[in-house]
């Protein structure tokens, strides 16, 4: 059976996506406010949210705004933050097999964490209506745009955003994501090595490459260093 794309599926997905509205609006407001702080207009913030559609990448890009290597830094921010989408996309491909590329490729534009999770749940339940995934993505987009515009519009009346802890939203959000990815002690190596390499890189090299350097070092080490129970002649442990 190949994947389908139905109107009913889109409706179901969109309604499911609306349940995520409060969170998406709140996230959008944080981005909009911080975008306004670095001098980006409401239209600018809205167009970034619409076309880039990657909250974490956009927030990280704001950190680089005004840096001398701005273009390079924002692109590194996008690639580093969206690197997980490469993995998400790889997992999506078998589920979407059979769908016309004219539908599949535009659909992938709307992929974010939330609707990817939906797609994986649908897959596990044996359902293959890709329109559900697109519907959730649309629902998220509505909240994300509304939040961005509201934040960029009203942000100027908030005053000192550091006082409100707004600069801490992104670190805290990443920590929550890390907690979500955390599966057990085997994850300690990529996390800690990634952090250490990034700290050293930031201190001694500078620029905006520390995320990439740490991310590659941590993940490659995890893939290539032998671990307990792997390639060892010792007794096998069954957890």
């Amino acid at each position, binding site marked *: 059976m190949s994947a389908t794309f139905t109107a009913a599926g889109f409706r179901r997905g969109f309604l499911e996506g609306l349940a995520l509205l409060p969170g998406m609006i709140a996230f959008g407001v944080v981005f909009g406010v911080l975008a306004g702080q670095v001098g980006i207009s409401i239209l600018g913030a809205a167009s970034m949210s619409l*076309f880039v559609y990657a909250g974490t990448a956009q927030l990280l890009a704001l950190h680089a705004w005004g840096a001398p290597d701005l273009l390079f830094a924002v692109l590194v921010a996008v690639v580093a933050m969206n*690197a997980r*989408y490469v993995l998400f*996309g790889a997992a999506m491909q078998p589920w979407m097999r059979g769908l016309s590329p004219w539908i599949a490729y535009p659909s992938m534009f709307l992929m974010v964490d939330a609707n990817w999770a939906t797609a994986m749940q649908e897959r596990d339940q044996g359902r293959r209506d890709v329109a559900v995934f697109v519907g959730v993505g649309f629902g998220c987009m509505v909240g994300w745009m509304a939040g961005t515009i509201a934040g960029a519009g009203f942000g100027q009346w908030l005053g000192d955003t550091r006082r409100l802890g707004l600069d801490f939203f992104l670190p805290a959000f990443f*920590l929550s994501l890390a*907690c979500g990815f955390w599966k057990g002690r085997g994850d300690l190596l990529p996390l800690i090595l990634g*952090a250490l390499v990034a700290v050293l890189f930031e201190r001694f090299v500078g620029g905006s490459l520390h995320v990439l*350097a740490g991310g590659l070092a941590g993940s490659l080490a995890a893939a290539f260093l032998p671990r307990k129970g792997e390639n060892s002649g010792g007794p096998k442990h069954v957890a």
Partner: protein
Amino acid sequence: MSLDPNTTAGFAVIISLMAVASYLTRIAGFFLMRFVVVTPRVEAWLKALPLAIMGAILGPIVAHGGPAEYAGFAATIAVFYWRRNDILAAFAGMAVVAASRAFFAL
């Protein structure tokens, strides 16, 4: 090449390139999966990538942080495991940081 993000043209170029980069990451894995043989090594690498990137982002922030930020991180972890909601946890961390800065003038 240096671009001024405060001009319309400069901003448009930056946004366009960001949008292209963002879309490419969304379709790269999808496209490549048609050709790639996912060996156990490749799978292990892909699996470890998200946490390594999170570590690389958080490391420097932890290194530069103070008591307010550490309290915020603790609150984030607590709320995440309590409600399993990442945006809610982030807002809890933010609130604790704001409160710590206000009360202890950090």
